[in-house]
C-alpha cells in the first residue's frame, strides 16, 4: 500500500481530463480513460538536429510519438545517413530492421524501418525510408553486420531487393517458394501451394491447398 501511494503521482497524467469532473482528478490513472500519446513534430529534437548538422539534407521529416523519434530519410541518402549515424554519432547497435507494406501509397509502397541504439546515452532513433516496389534499397550490411539476416528476412517476406547484400537468399521460407507472405496482397490462407510449389507435378491450380482450401 505504501508503494501504491509512492508511485501514483509519477504515473498520473497532467491536464488530460476536462476541468468539470473535479473528483476524477484524484483518481489513479488506471481508473481513468486512457489518453493516447499524440505525435508531434521533432525536427528540433537534439537527436534529429545532430543528424541534420552532421549530414545536411538527411532529414526529410521527423516525428516524435510516445518518446520515440522517427526520422524520414530520402532513399538516396540512406546509406550515407547510416554511415554517419554509426561512425560520427555513435549508433553502434542496429536493434531491428523491418518493413511495412502500404499498398497503393503514392510516395512508395514500402516503409523500411531501422531502429538504432546508442550505448553512450542509451538513445534510440528510428529511421524510415519510403521505397517503391520497383526500387532497390542499399544494403546496410557494410555498416552493421547484424543487418544481414534482417535484410534477408525483409527480402523473403516483402520481396524488397537490398543492393550490395552479400547473400540475399530466402531465410524463413524455402528456396523456390513463390510470393512474399507479409505483403498485404498475399492471402492469409496461403497460396495455391501444390501447383505453385511443384509446377512439374501438379497442373495449374491443382494440388493441395494450404488452409484446407476454404479460404
Amino acid at each position, binding site marked *: 500500500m505504501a508503494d501504491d501511494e509512492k508511485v501514483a503521482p509519477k504515473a498520473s497524467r497532467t491536464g488530460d481530463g476536462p476541468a468539470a469532473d473535479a473528483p476524477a482528478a484524484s483518481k489513479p490513472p488506471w481508473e481513468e480513460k486512457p489518453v493516447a500519446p499524440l505525435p508531434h513534430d521533432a525536427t528540433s529534437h537534439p537527436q534529429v538536429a545532430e543528424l541534420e548538422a552532421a549530414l545536411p539534407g538527411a532529414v526529410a521529416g521527423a516525428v516524435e510519438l510516445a518518446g520515440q523519434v522517427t526520422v524520414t530519410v530520402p532513399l538516396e541518402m540512406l546509406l550515407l545517413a547510416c554511415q554517419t549515424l554509426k561512425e560520427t554519432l555513435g549508433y553502434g547497435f542496429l536493434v531491428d530492421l523491418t518493413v511495412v507494406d502500404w499498398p497503393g501509397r503514392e510516395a512508395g509502397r514500402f516503409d523500411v524501418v531501422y531502429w538504432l541504439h546508442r550505448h553512450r546515452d542509451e538513445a534510440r532513433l528510428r529511421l524510415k525510408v519510403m521505397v517503391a516496389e520497383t526500387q532497390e534499397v542499399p544494403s546496410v550490411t557494410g555498416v552493421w553486420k547484424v543487418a544481414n539476416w534482417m535484410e534477408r528476412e525483409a527480402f523473403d517476406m516483402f520481396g524488397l531487393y537490398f543492393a550490395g547484400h552479400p547473400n540475399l537468399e530466402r*531465410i524463413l521460407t524455402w528456396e523456390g517458394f513463390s510470393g512474399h507472405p507479409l505483403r498485404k496482397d498475399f492471402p492469409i490462407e496461403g497460396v495455391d501451394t501444390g501447383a505453385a510449389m511443384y509446377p512439374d507435378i501438379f497442373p495449374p491450380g491443382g494440388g493441395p491447398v494450404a488452409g484446407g482450401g476454404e479460404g
Partner: protein
Amino acid sequence: METAALKTFADAEEMEVSFGPQHPSTHGVLRLMVKVDGERILDAKPIIGYLHRGTEKLFERETYNGCIPHTDRMDYTAAVTNNQGLVGAVEKLMGITIPPRAAYLRMILAELQRLASHLVWLATHALDIGAQTPYFYCFEERDKILDLFEEYCGARLTTNCMRVGGMPYDLTDGWTDRCRAFINQFPAKVEDWERLLTKNRIWRERTVGVGVISAADAVEWGLTGPPLRGSGVRWDIRKVFPYDRYNEVEFDVPIGTNGDTYDRYLVRMEEMRQSVRIIRQCLDRLPDGPVMAKVPKVIKPPKGEVYFSVEGPKGELGYYLVSDGGEKPYRLHVRPACFINLQALPDMVRGQLVADLVAVIGTLDIVLGEIDR
C-alpha cells in the same frame, strides 16, 4: 556429398556435413551446413525456417488480445515474457497505465519464467556436453514453477496470462505463500548445481575458451541478453528502459569477462539468483488493488507506431507495432532475440572442434520457435 567425402577422405581435406535439422543437440529444428577439416570447423552456415508458421501474418487477422496466444508459441520456454512484450507495446501506444498490483504480478511471473527458461537452458546445455545429472534436478525445479503458472492461469507452457491493461485474474488464495516457499528453497538448489559444474574439470574443459566473442563483436552482431553480458557489456533492458515497476526493485546485472561459454554459464547462474531476489522484493511489496486498468472493451490503439521491448530470458525481445486505428494490428513485427543471437554463431565456432559446436549452440540458448516464428 558422399562422393565429395570419399574423394577427400584419404588426404583429409575439407568436407561439408549437414548437422540437423533432426538432431537432439540442435535444440529443435536448426540445421547447420558445417564445413570441416577433420574435426576442425572451417565454417558453419545456419539454415532456419523449418518451424516458420507466419506468426506476424497471423497477428494481422487477430484482435490485440487475440494476438497474445500466438506470442506464447514463439519462444515456448518463455511464454510469459513474450506476453509481456506484446501487451506493453499496445499499452504504450494507447497510453494505458496499469495498476501497480498488475505490474508487480507481471514482474513475479516474468522472473519465474526467466528461472524456468534458464533451467531448460542449463538442463539441455549440460546434457549436450555430457553432464546428465543436472537435467533431472533442473526439470524438477521447473515443474514447481509450472505448477505455480498452472495455479495462476490454468496453463503450464503456453500461459496466455496477460491482457492489454493488466492481468486477467487475481492470485488464488495462498499462491504467494507457495511462491515464497519455492523461492526460499531455490537458491540452495542453484548452489547444488554450481557444486556439480562450476569447478568440475570436465565442464571447464568443455566450456572455458569455447565460443569466444569479444565485447565489440558482440555489439556489432547485435547480441543481447546473457550472450552480450557474458562478453562483459553490462546492459539489460530492465535497467536501461525499465518497464512495469523494475525501477522500484533492486537487482544486479551480472557480467562475464572472457565472453566464452563458461562465462555465459556463470552469468545465467547469477541471473537466477537475481531473479529470486526480484521475486522476493515483489512478494514483500505486492500492493493490493485492481489487476486491470480501465480499458475499452474493444482495444483500438490510435494511428501510430511504437516499439516496446522487454528483457526476455534470451535477450531483447521487441515488438514493433504499427496501428491504423483499427481493432487489429496493421503490422506487428517481432524483434526476436534468438534469431539475432544465432547469427553470430559462425563467427563463434570457426576454428573450433565439432564437439564445441554443440556447446556453442547450447550456450546461445536458442529456441527455434522464436527464430522461425
